[in-house]
């Protein structure tokens, strides 16, 4: 391991969890006073520890994006608190430290790249933080390598594919040396190849560079490798568990409009008909083994 070891932080400096959310509630303001405000989040509790890969899943409007906006200090909760390494996101003075600590990658690959050249885009966050020129150049080289985009240093964003643009966005966040990255549906607008590229990058950051990841998505299959999955529906957390624990709750997931890996669903259907199969089958190979034992 070389200097990339610097990314591995199994203990945050303050000894705090990276993300801590307590009794968080939020309703979007309504223009019309007669209208009932829609509760986007009600009483959310969540902790993400250093080095973890936590997935948040839920359909559109389940509150998962609202949560990410609160974590980044973009909106202020009505009640409850969110802390990033012990810094309360309501604390206006800490806002830049919070955003530097928990970096954020958004859904639309086009609308988060600022510069017409890849390398200056990656440098943007560091420039804002006042990093000296030679340090920026070094870091740009390093983070482009981490996301496998070194060959595109001088490329122009509009010539890249969606997956490549998202990897540039990730590099731009990595360059700010965050302790955690919040991914707000980064794959929703990508084709299967692009999704594969981005998921590979996210997993690599978590596994090989110790990056804490909070991944928000509505694709179940992207969370097979997560440490923990949080299922949200109607602004509430309805289940928390390991991927196998969550996926085996086929009936609950279907009820709230989420997909289940096909093999898990097939196992569920066969079990209903009396087959003695494990509940937590995820892959084709596990299914073949279970059926041909």
């Amino acid at each position, binding site marked *: 391991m070389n200097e990339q070891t610097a990314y591995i932080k199994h203990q945050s400096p303050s000894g705090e969890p990276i993300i801590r959310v307590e009794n968080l509630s939020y309703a979007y303001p309504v223009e019309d006073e007669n209208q009932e405000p829609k509760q986007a989040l009600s009483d959310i509790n969540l902790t993400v520890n250093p080095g973890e890969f936590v997935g948040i899943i839920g359909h559109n409007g389940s509150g998962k994006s609202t949560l990410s906006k609160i974590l*980044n200090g*973009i909106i202020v909760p009505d009640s409850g608190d969110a802390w990033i390494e012990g810094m309360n996101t309501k604390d206006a003075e800490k806002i*830049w430290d919070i*955003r*530097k600590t928990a*970096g*954020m990658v*958004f859904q*639309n690959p*086009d*609308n*988060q*790249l*600022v*510069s*017409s*050249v890849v*390398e*200056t885009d990656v*440098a*943007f*966050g*560091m*420039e*804002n*933080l*006042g*990093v*000296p*020129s030679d340090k*920026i*150049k070094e870091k*740009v080289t390093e983070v482009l390598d981490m996301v496998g985009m070194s060959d595109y240093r001088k490329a*122009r*964003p*509009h*010539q890249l594919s969606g997956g490549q643009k998202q990897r540039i966005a990730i590099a*731009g*966040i990595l360059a*700010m040396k965050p302790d955690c990255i919040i991914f707000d549906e980064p794959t929703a607008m990508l084709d299967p190849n692009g999704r594969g590229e981005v998921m590979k990058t996210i997993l690599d950051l978590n596994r090989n560079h110790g990056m804490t990841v909070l991944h928000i998505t509505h694709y179940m299959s992207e969370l097979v490798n997560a440490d923990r999955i949080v299922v949200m529906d109607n602004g509430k957390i309805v289940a928390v568990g390991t991927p196998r624990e969550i996926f085996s709750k086929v009936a609950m997931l279907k009820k709230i409009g989420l997909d289940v890996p096909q093999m898990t669903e097939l196992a569920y259907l066969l079990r209903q008909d009396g087959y003695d199969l494990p509940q937590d089958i995820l892959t084709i190979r596990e299914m073949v083994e279970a059926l041909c034992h």
Partner: protein
Amino acid sequence: MFKDITLGQYYPTGSVIHRLDPRTKINFTFAYIILLFVVNNPVGYLIAIGILALVIALSKIPFVYVARGLKPLIFIVVLTFVLNMFMTPGQVLWQWKFLHISRQGLKLSIFMSLRLVLLVTGTSIMTLATSPMDLTDGMEADMSVIPGIKRFAHDLAMMMSIALRFIPTLMEETDKIIKAQKARGADFETGNLIERAKALIPILVPLFVSAFRRADELATAMEARCYRGGAGRTRMYVLSYQKADTIAYVVLAATAAAMILSRFISYPWPFPFN
């Protein structure tokens, strides 16, 4: 398929002109334009043509490419020439009915159209040899030393660079919206002027909605990356003058001196120019 359109008209060759500091190129061009209005005699114009030819040669950009920038201006150049030639009163050299050419008119028409040609060629060689990004950086640096506009320098430059970034995206988007509305039977080609203008609403509204949405998301993404204006910001590439820039400024000073001095020489030339 707007993907490959290059913005502005940047023509990269990696020449010494391309490698100059953008401030040098902007300042040089600016000074050159002023000098073009100072010059009033053939020698001065010869120097102006000479220095421009030298820059074009050094830039390694094909001459046809440079000349292409003049194309949309041919009409104006010709008009300038003709108007000055026939409309300037003075010592009459030639007359036919109400048309006449005066000695002063001949001089003015040649000088004015030459001035236009040099002015346009001079600025287009700068944009051909400087990437839009560098141009923005150079303008920001130049503006931030001028009192008064100093405090807007960063904001203006940031706006320009974001515009540069989003022009290709929005062009692609426009193309898509046009096609989508055509697929719903839109007809942009027939009808009178008012009908045609009305037909544009289904394009413009979605385009504006999309541009605002993009702007909103981009602002959020920029803040998430700790952007808070120009104060305390550093740059990855800090502009710094090299030896070539010093040489360029010396050349500029010499040219300027020669062009100004040329005003004070009297010419025993066979031209009817005094």
